[in-house]
């Protein structure tokens, strides 16, 4: 009887310990599997190891749109379509758990210190005249994209490239107008039948018409059949490159400043 009771006790202990070991093993496995899923589904926008790119960096302890596990599950399984985050595909419960585990693990890795100084970067931003085309916290011009939340939306590598080679990373639209994923701030040259030229960025377009905004912030609307030429220039940007206007330290400082812009007034 006593032996039996001991046996029963040992079995109970074994059962009590085994799930914990299993859970720990599964947690490791989930992160590994989640990484594989991430590299297929998420890396295009969020970068390798979640360091950010066209999409926000995910290597943070707390994600703005997904501060807890439940909201992260929701973001992954439903997307945030009006902010450009698609639901890439429906996942099984198992796959969802793995992906959540991996994304959470990204925020637990200690982050390297930013290379630049945000405060100095703020001065670079002012001296370089960025505010003539960009709005930060309500101040500035509106020719280029607003930057108030840019540090939350884009990774540092993307921001660096946007400063040195703006045409390489023109933003992609998140709304259905003019079309989901269409290039925003796309330079367009319109040549009228009389030879007059209008250069601007595309605001909207359909099969028969196109709408531009020129460098003076004036809107133009054209019926395509009534102009001589419409030349889209996806390899250009109306923003000049700052690769030679700023030195390496200034660039790092500017990127640090932009990364610090998180929409927190």
């Amino acid at each position, binding site marked *: 009887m006593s032996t039996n009771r001991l046996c029963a006790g040992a079995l109970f202990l074994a059962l009590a310990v085994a799930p914990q070991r299993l859970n720990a093993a599964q947690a490791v496995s989930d992160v590994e599997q989640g990484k*594989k*899923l991430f*590299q*297929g*589904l998420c890396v*295009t926008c969020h970068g390798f190891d979640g360091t950010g790119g066209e999409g926000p960096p995910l290597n943070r302890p707390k994600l703005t749109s997904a501060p807890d596990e439940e909201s992260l599950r929701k973001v992954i399984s439903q997307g945030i379509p009006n902010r450009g985050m*698609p639901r*890439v*595909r*429906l*996942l*099984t*419960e*198992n*796959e969802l758990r793995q992906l959540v585990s991996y994304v959470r693990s990204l925020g637990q890795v200690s982050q390297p210190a930013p290379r630049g100084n945000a405060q100095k970067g703020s001065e670079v931003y002012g001296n370089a005249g960025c505010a003539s085309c960009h709005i930060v916290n309500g101040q500035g011009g509106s020719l280029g994209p607003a930057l108030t939340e840019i540090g939350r939306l884009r990774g540092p590598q993307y921001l660096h490239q946007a400063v040195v080679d703006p045409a390489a990373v023109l933003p*992609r*639209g998140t709304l*259905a*107008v*003019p*079309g*989901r*994923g*269409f*290039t925003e701030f*796309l330079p367009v040259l319109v040549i009228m039948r009389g030879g007059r030229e209008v250069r601007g960025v595309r605001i909207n*377009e*359909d*099969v*028969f*018409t196109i709408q531009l905004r020129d460098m003076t912030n004036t809107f133009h609307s054209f019926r395509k*059949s009534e102009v001589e030429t419409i030349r*889209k220039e*996806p390899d250009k940007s109306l923003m000049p490159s700052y690769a030679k206007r700023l030195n390496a330290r200034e660039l790092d400082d500017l990127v640090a400043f932009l990364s610090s812009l998180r929409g927190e007034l």
Partner: protein
Amino acid sequence: MIHRRFSAVSTTVVLLLAVTTSRAAGQVPYQRIVRAESEPQNWLTYGGTYKQQRFSQLDQINKQTVPRLKLAWAYQIRQPGIVETSPIVVDGIMYLTEPPSTVTALDVRSGRTLWTYSPTIPADVIVIGSPPVNRGVAILDDTVFVGTVHGHLIALDSRSGAVRWDIAVGDNKQGFYLTLAPLALDGKIVVGVSGAETGIRAYIDAYDAKTGRLVWRTHTVPAAGEPGADTWGPSSWKTGGGSTWLTGSYDPELNLLYWATGNPAPDWNADQRPGDNLYTDAVLAMDPADGKIKWHFQFTPHDVHDWDANQMLVLFDAPVGGRTRKLLAQANRNAFYYVLDRATGEFLAGVPYAKQTWAERLDAKGRPIKRKGIEPSLEGTLIFPNIQGAANWFSPSYSPRTGLFYQGAREMGTVYYKGEAEFQPGTAFLGGGGRAVNGDEAWGAIRALEGTTGKMKWEFRLLSPGFTSLLSTAGGLVFGGTEEGNFFALDADTGKPLWDIQLGAAVRGIPISYAVDGRQYVAIAAGFTMFVFGLN
């Protein structure tokens, strides 16, 4: 000059027919549908006639007059949702559907509502695989038939909208639902089902039009021991999919019913379903008396990209090899255009009509010779056409006048992913998915293909890949729309744009044409609105 004379003659014919049919106004016996081409003022089936050509013989709106096209009236859909309806028009009444499964009858002279019927849809309705849309109704005698997203087929009195009968075609708890316009035959209503994305085993059903009693059911995936079961592995046929979610076609002379089938399940992970997976991604020719399959042709054996073959099966007769053949043509989601002999199922022609990177070519029997490395993967595999296909549910048009098959083509790739597939009834059973490569790299086109060969005659480029249904007319026009809200008329012979208007929302409706009081109209839904245009 010749054109004008033809116009005058055909308008007279329309007016005479309007008088002669008024004695039986509102009554649509089977023989009237068989002869639908003789009353072009009406639009009696989903695609106009049993041939599903979506061609109007009306020519009052033509190349010369189309610049005078103006809005006649508009009808606002009451519930938000995607409107993909093709109305039918019978003797002055338009029957259209609204999302998810509402039927509304409108006075075509004024656009005013005559009646509306909305079935009670359970709050926990399961619709996995498409948005909760409805594409239209069928009419037979004095009854209108509609399929619903909770899997029912409902018969309504055409004068009042009162329910005559209401039956479950499939169990919605298992994932069955209906979005298609039913097809009315002689005393029977034929429907198919959606739901492959939940691992249903799909079928085509025929119901007694008077009572709703099931007359026959033909499964699109054979059970163990049946012909074709050896193309599935041991048990995957039980969850094999093969949905039948778009309206079929019918040839009264051959007495053959044609129905297209959808993808095998799970969509992107084929580990458990080795083989061709008959009869998915195929066309079935059936005896309408008992549903027996007379012949079949499979477009995409062992599909791993969700390339349903649920595109319209368009019937026409044309010379091939020196003699007139009875043909069936389809621009398939897999980017190939196919021409079959519809009496025998013989493959006659097949060519790509949009960019594709998955097949080297079709062999002499129309079977694709697949390239290596096209399967979805964990890291993603870029393949053309895209996950929603080079074509999809939207209707093409065939003009007997030009001999051209008009098709909206979607030029876009997708990165296809393979994932886990776990079958739980009534839940998603997908095994992966895809990320479409959209934006400025993707685009669309209206293409005019020679009906018998698929050779492209002209192309009208669209800004983005759309869901563009087309209508061709004896007036020498092709009507279509865009994702950006344009609705336009092209010259059917050259593709040159002749008229357009901005409707303010994506054009997902399916255009038709009809006439009343001697005036021709064109109807199209965009956004949440049905627009009707006539000459000023």
